[in-house]
């Protein structure tokens, strides 16, 4: 596009001609033998100029003798090329290029990306940084000049976000702006490159490319454990592991001599593909799909080749045969994976139990925190105890008050995967097994409101996993996910010490309620509704009873009026409570506090923190299951599959690399290690170019090659070919030093330019391919959320560990999943609490069929397949996220609290808030708008204190007690305004 060639200039085959031929001709006259028409190839000169019956397609230097040219300019639709039915047509300018090319002798050139790069000479006397030299040389040729350096405030925000994904604090911005040292920027860059968050930031692109997720994908999409691999990636970037080793360990870490645990974890890379255990799917077909996905990922993430095109036929555009494809396929086909695997939350094999490669965590600090929390929970708090006792006594006083049971006449029962053997009669459910049963009943008419439901079972060793209910005006055979009843209490007649009644609301297949082992006769479970119902308002009641493993064969269903006669207090606690406090002995007092510490609502936050800390310690110190590569003891053979179909094997092939690329290094083995050596040999023309292009794209928004997954003949030409090659060669020569590469790029003046676009420049080069100005683009989804968390002060900076489930607006998992019908995990969403709400977004649990909606809104991919180029859309749904998502509303509240708590006048607070969110002080006018917004909101809340208090009740984190609600609520609105500014989510 910007490389349009002028009249009379020599035509360049690669730049000018090949794109035209590739787009319009090669699909029928190219590499693919099967799709070829008229036995004519135009992608190779010897074929194009070869004599044919009626003359050569191209006669170098002779238009009249070039049959192809005659067809191109033909008036006869039957003769015209490309044929009209292809919907392709050459423009006059394209025809002109072809005409001149033929006149100039029709020279061909090998495709640039398939030839190893040679170090081009850096243009002399232009700029000291080679990046700038290449870019400015080109600008000069175009008659443009570079933009001035961006101001320091912009620079620190830009480079901090690019290298760590986190913006600088207000104080960091001010210190940097004031720093008189001319080397301040260099020092800043080095500090950021050494940050542990650098690895997190770089991991993002690689997780997309490697299609990392926490679930198996396909229709059932159950949970898996592969976060150790994600943590390996973070550590590798933090260690600045040379890129060649980065690839070798991921492709073949298991085959390295004396391989370490971490190198085995690394091989999870090619286990990130989706897997299924869906009944009825055919194992051979699944395995073929898995391997095809591995080849595709290798192609797009590492080689910049759209290899997947050659699964069914020879590549239409690149010289890649189907045979080449299956030779690559063979490298991965030796894995001993099974075609149906991964059910019940257990990883699909091969698996290993390994320790985290991450060294950023500090187990000692976590142990300290655990000790503090345990001590807190172990220390009786008399005031808390007294309050708890008052609450329990009040509840006990109401216990069984007027309770009356009413059998529910049941009408229908269903379960998803079984046709019979179960039934309902009266209020009895019969023939139950390990499954979820939905029963529809009529709400009994009662003289008082119905307070809840009771399930009565014959005592046995069952484990009731979950109970749900909906009450409605119309009958429903199944519970309605959108109208699930909320319960204020769950009690049971007795319980197993590890399976208390309340666990039927834990939604975990290993948890639930089980009666006491010694219980005889009948046992029951009672669930009290948050809001009572009546038969008049809710004539139909649907109840779901779910046994994941050990079922009770039958149950009776009642509703009750009055108050639950059960209690969640064990007998010994009841006995202790029965005594006056002064009459209790030390053992009784200890037992009582132990119970309070384990159950009191007032200590829930401490218990959550403790559980999170304990999990964190285990993540840092204990082995965990992960998926790895291995070579099967009986490796599968690989065949060329006709049309890519697993059921049509043809010729047997051995592992090998595509013939159009340089051969394997001497002495390479025919296994993944050999493949890895080939990928990373200095002569591989693609690997380094693709890697530097990815780095460039991360920093400049668009790659030097704008099609990062396709360096083939249909891919875009590099905007600065010499620069790309210089960077690639230099990268390899430096020992594949990724950090050095990034440092070189961010220290360039090209990177540091102001992004300000004048109308003239915008008109001349709207997409900024010539780089006459600095890069500006919207932040990736994850960093938008991370930024809100950071400025709110809520961000938890722990690295790595199991993925977390922060707020979700709805149970988006259960809506689409197999809940109640499969042992697979991750079928219903259970929100986490405490620190887990505030982790960086790359730790958010990634369920492929329902990815986190607040990230998906900002173009995060679903991670089903390799993605190397996220789109950048602008939609109203994004506005709804940053305005209304609990996560963002809570962040606004917390940021507002931080601002309100600052000393100084409103103007200085507004200034600080802008510095913190935007990385720059507000202009006078902006300050005016923000201050008047503040005044307006203050007036609003002053008039309505209750509204202010209610406005602050969003999110789990504590509200600051020391600042008046109205003040905080007003600042919360100002904070929300700041968080929603376009500039806030843009990296400028």
């Amino acid at each position, binding site marked *: 596009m910007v490389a349009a060639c002028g009249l009379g200039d020599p035509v360049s085959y690669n730049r000018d001609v090949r794109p035209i031929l590739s787009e319009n001709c090669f699909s029928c006259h190219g590499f693919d033998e099967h799709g070829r028409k008229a036995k004519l190839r135009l992608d190779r000169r010897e074929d194009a100029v070869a004599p044919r019956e009626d003359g050569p397609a191209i006669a170098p230097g002779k238009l009249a003798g070039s049959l192809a040219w005659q067809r191109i300019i033909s008036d006869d639709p039957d003769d015209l090329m490309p044929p009209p039915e292809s919907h392709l047509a050459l423009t006059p300018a394209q025809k002109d290029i072809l005409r001149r090319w033929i006149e100039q002798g029709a020279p061909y050139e090998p495709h640039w990306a398939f030839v190893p790069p040679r170090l081009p000479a850096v243009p002399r006397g232009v700029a000291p940084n080679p990046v700038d030299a290449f870019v400015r040389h080109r600008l000069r040729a175009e008659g443009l000049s570079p933009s001035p350096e961006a101001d320091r405030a912009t620079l620190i925000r830009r480079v901090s976000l690019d290298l760590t994904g986190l913006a600088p604090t207000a104080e960091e911005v001010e210190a940097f702006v004031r720093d008189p040292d001319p080397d301040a920027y260099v020092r800043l860059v080095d500090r950021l490159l050494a940050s542990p968050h650098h690895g997190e930031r770089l991991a993002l692109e690689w997780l997309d490319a490697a299609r990392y997720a926490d679930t198996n994908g396909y229709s059932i999409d159950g949970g898996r454990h592969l976060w150790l691999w994600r943590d390996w990636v973070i550590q590798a970037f933090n260690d600045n592991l040379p890129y060649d080793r980065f690839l070798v360990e991921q492709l073949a870490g298991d085959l390295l001599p004396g391989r370490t645990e971490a190198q085995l974890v690394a091989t999870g890379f090619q286990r990130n593909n989706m897997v299924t255990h*869906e009944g009825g799917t055919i194992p051979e077909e699944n395995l073929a799909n898995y391997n095809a996905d591995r080849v595709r990922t290798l192609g*797009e993430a590492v080689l910049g080749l759209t290899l997947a*095109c050659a699964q069914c036929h020879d590549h239409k555009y690149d010289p890649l045969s189907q045979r080449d494809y299956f030779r690559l396929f063979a490298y991965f086909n030796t894995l001993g994976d099974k075609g149906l695997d991964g059910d019940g939350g257990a990883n699909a094999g091969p698996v290993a139990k390994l320790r985290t490669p991450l060294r950023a965590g500090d187990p000692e600090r976590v142990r300290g925190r655990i000790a503090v929390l345990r001590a807190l929970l172990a220390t009786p708090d008399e005031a808390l105890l007294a309050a708890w006792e008052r609450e329990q006594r009040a509840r006990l006083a109401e216990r069984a008050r007027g309770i009356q049971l009413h059998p529910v006449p049941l009408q229908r029962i269903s379960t*998803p995967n079984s046709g019979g053997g179960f039934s309902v009669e009266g209020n009895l459910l019969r023939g139950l097994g390990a499954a979820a049963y939905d029963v529809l009943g009529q709400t009994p008419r009662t003289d008082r409101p119905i307070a809840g439901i009771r399930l009565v079972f014959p005592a046995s060793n069952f484990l009731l996993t979950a109970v749900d209910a909906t009450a409605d005006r*119309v009958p429903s055979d199944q519970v309605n996910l*959108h109208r699930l009843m909320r319960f204020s209490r769950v009690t049971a007649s007795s319980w197993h010490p590890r399976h208390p009644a309340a666990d039927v609301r834990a939604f975990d297949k290993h948890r639930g309620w089980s009666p006491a082992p010694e219980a005889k006769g009948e046992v029951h479970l009672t669930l009290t509704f948050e809001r009572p119902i009546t038969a008049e308002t809710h004539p139909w009641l649907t109840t779901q009873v779910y046994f994941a493993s050990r079922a009770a064969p039958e149950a009776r269903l009642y509703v009750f009026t009055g108050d639950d006669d059960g209690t969640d207090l064990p007998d010994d606690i009841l006995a202790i409570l029965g005594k006056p406090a002064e009459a209790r002995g030390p053992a009784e007092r200890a037992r009582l506090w132990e119970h309070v510490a384990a159950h009191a609502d007032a200590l829930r936050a401490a218990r959550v923190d403790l559980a999170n800390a304990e999990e964190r310690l285990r993540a840092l110190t204990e082995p965990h299951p992960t998926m790895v590569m291995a070579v099967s003891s009986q490796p599968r053979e690989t065949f060329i599959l006709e049309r890519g179909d697993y059921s049509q094997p043809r010729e047997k092939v051995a592992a090998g690399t595509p013939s159009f690329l340089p051969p394997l290094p001497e002495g390479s083995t025919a296994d993944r290690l050999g493949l890895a050596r080939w990928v990373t040999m200095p002569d591989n023309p693609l690997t380094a170019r693709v890697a530097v292009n990815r780095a460039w794209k991360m920093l400049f928004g668009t790659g030097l090659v704008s099609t990062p997954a396709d360096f083939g003949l249909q891919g875009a030409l590099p905007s600065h070919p010499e620069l790309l090659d210089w960077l690639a060669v230099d990268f390899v020569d430096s020992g594949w030093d990724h950090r050095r590469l990034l440092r070189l790029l961010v220290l360039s003046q090209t990177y540091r330019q102001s992004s300000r676009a004048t109308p003239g420049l915008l008109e001349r080069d709207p997409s900024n391919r010539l780089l006459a100005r600095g890069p500006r683009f919207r932040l990736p989804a994850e960093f938008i959320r991370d930024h809100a968390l950071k400025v709110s002060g809520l961000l938890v900076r722990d690295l790595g560990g199991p993925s977390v489930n922060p707020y979700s607006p709805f149970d988006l998992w259960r809506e689409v999943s197999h809940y109640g019908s499969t042992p697979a995990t991750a079928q219903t969403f259970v929100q986490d609490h405490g620190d887990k709400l505030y982790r960086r977004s790359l730790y958010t649990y990634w369920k492929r069929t329902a990815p986190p909606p607040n990230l998906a809104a900002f173009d995060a991919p679903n991670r089903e397949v390799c993605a190397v180029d996220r789109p950048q859309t602008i939609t109203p749904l994004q506005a*709804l996220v940053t305005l*209304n998502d609990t996560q963002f509303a809570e962040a606004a509240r917390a940021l507002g609290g931080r601002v309100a708590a600052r000393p100084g006048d409103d103007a200085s607070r507004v200034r600080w808030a802008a510095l913190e969110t935007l990385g720059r002080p507000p202009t006078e006018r902006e300050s005016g708008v923000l201050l008047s917004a503040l005044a307006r*909101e203050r007036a609003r809340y002053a008039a309505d204190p209750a509204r202010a208090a209610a406005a602050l009740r969003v999110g789990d984190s504590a509200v600051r007690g020391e600042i008046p609600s109205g003040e905080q609520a007003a600042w919360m609105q100002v904070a929300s305004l700041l968080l929603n500014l376009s500039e806030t989510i843009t990296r400028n």
Partner: protein
Amino acid sequence: MDPRIEHLEHLTRRTFVGQAARGIGGLALGTMLLPDLLAKAGAGAGSRVGGLPGVPHFAPKAKRVVCLFQSGGLSHIDLFEDKPELRRLAGQDLPPSAKGTQRLTGMTSGQSRYPLQPSIAGGKLCGRQGAWISDLLPHIQTIADDICVIRSMNTEAINHDPAITYMNTGNQLPGYASIGAWASYGLGTENANLPAFIAMVSQGTGKNPGQPVFSRLWGSGFLPSSHQGVGLRPGANPVLYLNNPPTVDAAQRRALLDDLALLNDERARELGDPDTVARIKAYEMAFRMQTSVPELTNISGESPATLAAYGPEVTKPGSYAANCLLARRLLERNVRFVQLFHRGWDQHVSLGRQLPNQCRDIDQPTAALVKDLKARGLLEDTLVVFATEFGRTSFTQGGFGSPGAGRDHHGRCFSIWLAGGGIKAGHLHGATDDFGYNIAKDPVHLRDFHATLLHCLGIDHERLTYRFRGLNARLTGVEPAKVVKGVLA
């Protein structure tokens, strides 16, 4: 291509609706930034926002689509095929000549017998065309004159995930754009207050939970994600994050958005930043959606007769019936593509018990929707699609005569129907053999169905393309596909 035009088109593609730089309510920034391009961008746009220049390629018969997707594999054998041979040979094995050698799923490939099972209920010949429709669908029987049944649909896929992905995106593998996303991409929207593509999911009572559905089915694949279907859910938050945080009312939000626009506008001028201009528009549309969506989902203005027509479940939020009514309300508002997914059609077991329930879910509301559209004059230019990912085997899965028996997946032939804009009403297309197992006449591959659907929208399926990984990707993929002329009016 002129780089400026290319950039403008790029901006256009990435915004949810419409040209980034056009008609920024009261803000003149766009004109300042991209002076002479605006005339080009605005030319002939009419009331439509977004979409590609030159699309539709020819005068469309349908302006909008509602796709009633029966997820799990609807049994054509029980619902749309009358096969005397099956009744005669009930319990006997499917003859090898009909069964052929094609693959079966792992659920029945190990069976020693393949006993034939005729449809579980009676049926009648309906409408001018005399389409046999099961008595399990008594209401759909009454709209036979409005619909065109295709009994010769076929797909290569035999399992849910690939099959439903194929039917909805034209490819069995993930990563491709759904039909609705293509429609949004090509045609844009004619309602600036609602997304161009809306998806709704309901749970069937035949089998609950049914086979999962996933966002990929209404996703944008390689197309810009602004074209993905927006989920509309029952309850207080019909679009995720639609509701303001606690206590924030519309007036307060308006005041905040005015401040926001002021600050954004100023900065955009300062930096020359078209993205910020587009974002200001997006915030305004978000604000309008906060009104337009609750107005859409509030059915209190519907007449008792209308509600009664859709059946008793219409007042149950999230039900198929409620979604059908919402679909009509969306189509009335000119939403381009509305898609319902009703789960639970996967009758491997207990066919006799599950299928009647599943049919009851959808029969009355489906017929009511077609009649309602017709009564309001909307059926003329609305394409109604009643589809599924595959059919079911004419032999049983499990023992013949057992109450637990069901039917396995069957892709070699299955039934769908179309109605409305561009479709030959009261018509029957294609036929299967005596066993409802193989196609006997006029096969319609799902690619042909896609080509036909686009044709009704005025789109040549070969010319609606998107550059992806070096290919001009299209909904109908790389294999040949043809418009099924026989079903067109």
